[in-house]
């Protein structure tokens, strides 16, 4: 399956290579560089490239290309999913998945890659198992190791590897037993110029942080499980219980993990909690334009809208922008033509506004389309879909855990400007 892996940074240096079968020369990456050159930006590098003797399947994560070399037919998603899992593992181990982190921990990276794949087929990808085999680096441990000479490598087979619940290790012990559930919902909407919603949907995830001793068996139920239209589960969730009773029943992994991700059916009307008033115009022949945007809150059940950030990809002809913001700060990058306005919190009494003059390249034709505005925001303690957790029960262990849950709604909306050109 996966033959070799090359890690390549943005400037095109291969800084790590790992082979699971015979060695494949670095020169195979030339095909990748070729494709990279053809693509306009990193986002457009095709994930699957065919070369005379190999196939290259790559992902781009955190400014690193993970390029894997394949020799025979394999489902491409299999490889892509695996590469992302590798990146996740690095993130988990080193706190960040960056070139420096990988270079600093090259031995651990190598040991990890060795355990994750055998002959190109995934062997152990569960973080709980890996952590028993290879301990993540901590400052304390490296000091202790240098004194005592003990090692970071486990010498027994992780219990999870053999059991039916490979995601949980045995013998977990905590003095404070806690279980936290973060419900994070993201509303994703496309809004046209007149303010009507073209498309909106809510995607949510429940991220959990479970620190419970022993082998707890949890069940989480919702007040309104019918809201969840389409759900994907962590392998720990018993599918049959969900099918029959709409209850999430599971023995959780230890630590942080994503319990479920779901989509709320679009039939339920989505109320978008912010609105935007915008006036963007470019004048012919004067090489300047006006820019005026106001953001305000809509129905949001008394919660404040926070962390509002607006990004606008301005047309190429824009040279510079002279704006004043009544709140927050803005930056305009003349190279990428991206305007970012960090608004912060919205107070209904004084609506944030950003206005000023746009300078265009002289002589360039006036941009025909108004740019689309992307707005991101956050609402704490509110699940926009109205999802409510009913109760969490624990069986199998005898202590009393502390339970908590929090709600965050993230928003991302993209109002489009429609012009009046007509097809009818």
């Amino acid at each position: 399956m996966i033959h070799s892996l090359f890690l390549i940074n943005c400037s095109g240096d291969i800084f790590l290579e790992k082979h699971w079968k015979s060695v494949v020369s670095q020169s195979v990456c030339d095909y990748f560089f070729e494709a990279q050159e053809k693509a306009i930006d990193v986002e457009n590098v095709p994930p699957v490239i065919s070369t005379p003797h190999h196939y290259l399947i790559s992902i781009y994560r955190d400014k690193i290309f993970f390029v894997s070399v394949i020799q025979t037919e394999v489902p491409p998603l299999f490889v892509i999913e695996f590469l992302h899992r590798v990146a996740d593992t690095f993130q988990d181990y080193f706190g960040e998945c960056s070139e420096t982190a990988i270079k600093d921990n090259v031995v651990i990276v190598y040991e990890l890659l060795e355990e994750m794949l055998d002959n190109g087929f995934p062997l152990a990808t569960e973080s709980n198992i890996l952590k028993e085999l290879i301990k993540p680096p901590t400052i304390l441990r490296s000091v202790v190791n240098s004194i005592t000479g003990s090692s970071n490598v486990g010498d027994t087979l992780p219990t999870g590897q053999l059991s039916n619940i490979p995601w949980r290790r045995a013998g977990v012990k905590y003095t404070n037993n806690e279980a936290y559930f973060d419900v994070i919902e993201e509303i994703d909407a496309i809004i046209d110029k007149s303010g009507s919603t073209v498309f909106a949907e809510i995607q949510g995830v429940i991220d959990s942080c479970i620190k419970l001793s022993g082998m707890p068996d949890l069940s989480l139920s919702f007040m309104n499980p019918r809201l969840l239209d389409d759900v994907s589960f962590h392998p720990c969730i018993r599918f049959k219980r969900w099918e029959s009773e709409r209850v999430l029943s599971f023995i959780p992994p230890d630590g942080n993990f994503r319990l479920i991700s779901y989509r709320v059916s679009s039939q339920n009307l989505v109320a978008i909690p912010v609105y935007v008033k915008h006036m963007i115009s470019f004048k012919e022949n004067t090489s300047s334009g006006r820019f005026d945007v106001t953001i305000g809150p809509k129905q949001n059940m008394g919660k404040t809208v926070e962390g509002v950030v607006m990004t606008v990809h301005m047309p190429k002809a824009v040279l510079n922008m002279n704006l004043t913001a009544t709140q927050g700060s803005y930056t305009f990058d003349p190279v990428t033509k991206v305007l970012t306005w960090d608004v912060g919190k919205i107070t209904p009494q004084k609506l944030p506004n950003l206005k000023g003059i746009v300078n265009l390249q002289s002589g360039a034709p006036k941009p025909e389309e108004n740019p689309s505005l992307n707005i991101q925001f956050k609402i704490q303690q509110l699940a926009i879909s109205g999802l409510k957790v009913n109760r969490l029960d624990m069986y199998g262990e005898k202590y009393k855990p502390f339970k908590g849950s929090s709600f965050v709604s993230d928003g991302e909306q993209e109002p489009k400007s429609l012009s009046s050109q007509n097809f009818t």
Partner: protein
Amino acid sequence: MSGNGLTYSEQGGEAAPELAQEAAPTVTPSTPAAFGLFSSDTKKNEDLKQMLESSKDSAKLDAMKRIVGMIAKGKNASELFPAVVKNVASKNIEIKKLVYVYLMRYAEEQQDLALLSISTFQRALKDPNQLIRASALRVLSSIRVPIIVPIMMLAIKEASSDLSPYVRKNAAHAIQKLYSLDPDQKEMLIEVIEKLLKDRSTLVAGSVVMAFEEVCPDRIDLIHKNYRKLCNLLVDVEEWGQVVIIHMLTRYARTQFVSPWKSRRFLEDNALKHENNFYESDEEQKEKDQKLKTTYTMDPDHRLLLRNTKPLLQSRNAAVVMAVAQLYWHLAPKSEAGIVSKSLVRLLRSNREVQYIVLQNIATMSIQRKGMFEPYLKSFYVRSTDPTMIKTLKLEILTNLANEANISTLLREFQTYVKSQDKQFAAATIQAIGRCATNITEVTDTCLNGLVCLLSNRDEIVVAESVVVIKKLLQTQPAHHGEIIKHMAKLLDNITVPVARASILWLIGEYCERVPKIAPDVLRKTAKSFTNEDDLVKLQILNLGAKLYLTNSKQTKLLTQYVLNLGKYDQSYDIRDRTRFIRQLIVPNEKSGALSKYAKKIFLAQKPAPLLESPFKDRDHFQLGTLSHTLNSRATGYLELSDWPEVAPDPSVRNVDVAESAKEWTGILGKPKKEKPTEKFYSESEEEEDESASTSSSGKCLESTAFSLPGKLCLQNCLVHK
């Protein structure tokens, strides 16, 4: 301990000048730098060798870490082989592991020396610790040294009846390694595969099926007896194994069951509503089938597979979801295949790479069965932040899904896309509009008008693309479009994109009788600029000249001859060739043969309109979700999906004698049942657990800290089972 890889290079950097200084007095001072570099290299390896030979584990470990750092960077560390190999028997597990890493990398290059390590592995294969047994087998089988094939074979055989499923899993992996090293062992390996296929551990299932796919994918007979077991185990197998097993079972099912598609009219009628056109042609065959066999009942084993894979659509792993989706696409009755669309649409929220593959597959599906994705039309709307390749794929799907009902919404959406700053995407949108126009006759005129409006667009690429599409559209409907052609003739002065210019010239030539006044003038203009034109345009100028010569020779005779003369001395042989050909055909002279009489018929024949088709149209002959499907060409090792058999092979081959299986089972496990009972599966254990839960909960109370947040009650107070 961390940062050794880096410190190594840093040391290298610092050490070099120092050494150079030391070396400088003794050697010719002219090349100190080169010498310094050279000596530091060997020196360092010397020092690594010393560290490896030291008695302290910490020094050895440091050395090994630096060596692994070198391997990771792709530097050659092979000369240290003898020093490293000595440490293979080290007691320190981390040193051992790093030595393994080194061995796997270099054993192939240093076969003789690698043999020194074999006895250590043979000993480790008998170790009481299963992890050590397994990793010894892993390394032993990863050393690609042909001499040890018999040893490997023996080790695999032994490991395949090991008590630990983890070791057995590694044995399954070793099968593939040995097979790629020495294909002659195939027969022996198949025996091992056969044995491991009977294994009931979920841990082994995925790996052994992988080995099966690699070594003997055609030995479908090995699967029969294990089919039901694999179906039942599937939910509990780890996710990577699931993908492999599902793909294998898809192939298996296509050889063993009869098609569920050709009968069951009443069920399929529903599905057919959306796709009338597509299936009409099958009607006859269906009639025939129905006479042949009026009632179709699905084989219970076929149903078992569909039922047991369905829950996996909820997997967090995109590869698993896609695998199930392709299984339903290839195996399920058409009315049931719809359930996968929701899950596939969900994957569109994932990374761009996942999106790319999923969209490709949806594109193929949406051509054949529009109904599957119609409810999710809006999920394919393009976002301005999508990368271009995702945008074009979404556009492709939107075009496939277009029908009379949604076309007006779609066209409105397309209008925004045309104005996108991403010009490549805007051009693709224009193509898409063209395709909608030909597919849905009601909107052809609307689309054409819209495209004509685009001709006055400021962006050249947009205009050029519109011209090309209009050309195709006019060809499909040769009605009275004189106005549009006139409009386009005017554009010729400003457009510089060769394809567009060529398209306009072709149009004017083709319909020169509709624009009798304009055509000769266009020829005059282009004759003037002939030498500066692109080859593509030159060819069309020649065509235009020829057509005008035939229809309006009075006005254009001289002009055409002038153009032909220019063409005669052109640099491109293609154009010279075409010139000669045209001259012979249209200019009557004594040598011209019988053909010139038919010149008019040849040049002004009714030409068939081009078909505007999806590039995904012919992709469905590849199994969905495969690499071959993504590349649209056969990848090495692609296994063809066979057609349904006319008559189902004997289903009883899948029957398993209970007594026999039980016997085998104990045989594998060995007499003492020391290992954890693996028969108990997570997903099936609910009942037991529920029982234990109720008993334990009766005695205790789970009190929860209740806290309500303003406006929303998060976790309600739950005093349980009090």
